[in-house]
């Protein structure tokens, strides 16, 4: 499996290529600003070389460790009705949760700026392990 190249922003890596339409629509939602105008600062990695890549292996790459979070759009993302994107903490890849596309900006902005901690989001997920925003 190839290594991720250095990116200025948190990577969003596509590892499932079964539904191009869903991927395109997911990106539209991810790139929409929040109600307060916040935008997700991400670098999209859409390369078939990463098909079925192990998210934990990706998170362990030397070019990912500088980021507070790695986002992965995997098979479960596209199989689920809410299209939840996998969030991994690169220093501790065993720490994961999922986030719906429209809330990805919140995870990225707050973790990248260290405005909030990983536990703040991981502790606010619904019963199915998906973060849908703070109540």
């Amino acid at each position, binding site marked *: 499996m190839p290594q991720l190249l250095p990116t200025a922003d948190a990577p969003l890596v596509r590892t499932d290529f079964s539904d191009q339409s869903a991927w395109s629509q997911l*990106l539209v*939602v991810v*790139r929409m600003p929040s109600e307060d105008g916040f*935008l997700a600062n991400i670098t999209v990695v859409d390369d078939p070389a990463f098909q079925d890549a192990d998210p934990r292996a990706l998170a362990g790459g030397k070019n990912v460790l500088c980021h507070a979070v790695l986002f992965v759009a995997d098979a479960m993302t596209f199989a689920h009705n809410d299209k939840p994107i996998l969030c991994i903490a690169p220093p501790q890849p065993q720490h994961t949760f999922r986030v719906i596309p429209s809330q990805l900006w919140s995870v990225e902005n707050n973790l990248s700026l260290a405005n909030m901690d990983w536990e703040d989001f991981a502790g606010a997920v619904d019963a199915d392990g998906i973060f849908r925003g703070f109540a």
Partner: protein
Amino acid sequence: MRIKYAALAASLAICAAQGAQAQMLSSGPTYGFVYGDFSQLSSPGQKLNGGGGGLGWHFTRYLGIQGGAAYYRDTPLDLTSANVEMMLTYPANDKFSLYAGLGGSYVHGTANPGFGSITRQSTGYRAGLGFEYWFAKPWGLRFGYYRQNAGGVADDMRVGIALRF
């Protein structure tokens, strides 16, 4: 001698015709216009094609105002934008003029991707450069390139026609 008079008369006739042509194309110090255009809105990783129109008024030879709206669609996104801006115009000649625009923009976007509908609206600045080429008194071509930051930074390239009155 007759030849000299004939040449002089012809010269005067040509000058008069040119004057009439210049008069026809000259817009005068103030005029209004309406326009319709094709627009491409580009932001990182995304390009939207759409169209719109608007109207404007030149208060003086150099200063004016214009406003308009445009609609874009690229499944699952519907985007409507409206803008108002002041125009600083430099008329290079009767047909061609350059302008700079500075104003504000309002953007309303709705995404219906099938996993939840999202609606957002934003306002922000808008600035750009463009030119107008009037190929006849009422009709002209317009081109403009703008940058705006309403819900994210985007470049707006517009090509269209205008009708002035």
